[in-house]
């Protein structure tokens, strides 16, 4: 599993660096998605399967989709049409596509070889994580629910206020 760890690390670092160097927000988001998937590969190679699944579902699945929605909402009108022409050029897919292909090749190698387990030989499964989360750290779960409620209320308030201020100006 060592080569999985090192290849995923290289892809994660490269994706993050290229995302920060991008001028177009959409291109940067594609690079960040690849980078997050590579980090999930690192977690998998470390035997942290549950964290890898959460990384894909929450980070790459939910948070980046939120970013994409906002980018879509910000580009209204004719500018969005021009932007669409930029986005749909084949050259912009090459960078994220090559990195994603490397990740895919890694996955295929793992599946064909049937190599499971982790680099250290010790895996921490979802059962251990859940027992720790709802055992000694249950106060953290309560605090996380407070934080999520506060974030929800704040986002709803700011989102409903944005329309009225936009109308005044």
């Amino acid at each position: 599993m060592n080569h999985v760890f090192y290849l995923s690390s290289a892809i994660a670092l490269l994706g993050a660096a290229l995302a920060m160097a991008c001028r177009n927000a959409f291109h940067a988001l594609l690079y960040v998605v690849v980078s997050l998937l590579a980090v999930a590969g690192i977690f998998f190679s470390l035997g942290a399967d549950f964290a890898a699944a959460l990384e894909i579902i929450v980070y790459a699945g939910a948070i980046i989709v939120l970013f994409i929605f906002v980018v879509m909402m910000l580009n209204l009108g004719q500018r969005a049409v021009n932007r669409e022409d930029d986005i749909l050029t084949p050259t912009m897919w090459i960078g994220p596509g090559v990195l994603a292909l490397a990740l895919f090749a890694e996955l295929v190698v793992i599946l064909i070889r049937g190599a499971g387990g982790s680099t250290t030989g010790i895996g921490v499964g979802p059962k251990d994580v859940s027992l720790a989360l709802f055992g000694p750290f249950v106060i953290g779960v309560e605090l996380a629910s407070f934080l999520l409620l506060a974030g929800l209320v704040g986002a709803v308030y700011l989102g409903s206020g944005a329309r009225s201020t936009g109308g005044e100006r």
Partner: protein
Amino acid sequence: MTAEVLLEHGLVVASALFATGLIGVLVRRNLLFQLLAIEIMLNAAGMAFVIAGARWGEADGQVFFIFILVMAAAEVAVGLALLLRLSHRFRGLDGDSVSVMRG
């Protein structure tokens, strides 16, 4: 690979990712990119927790990764709502446009 080498290499990768995000926050002036860079930094911090948890075979690292995930989700929801409001008000995402207070 022994567990110590894994810990060292993993922490090097996590700190390099964190540095990439920090450079993004400092260099870019577009607020959307700054939020993305903050996400990368939070991700790197969570990665350090998971690596340390894998080193000693404990579940605590992944538990704290879940807490960081929750915090990142709450932060990005409020941050993007603020971003939308700013872009409505100042017609752009330039962070320098809100550097001066009025009143």
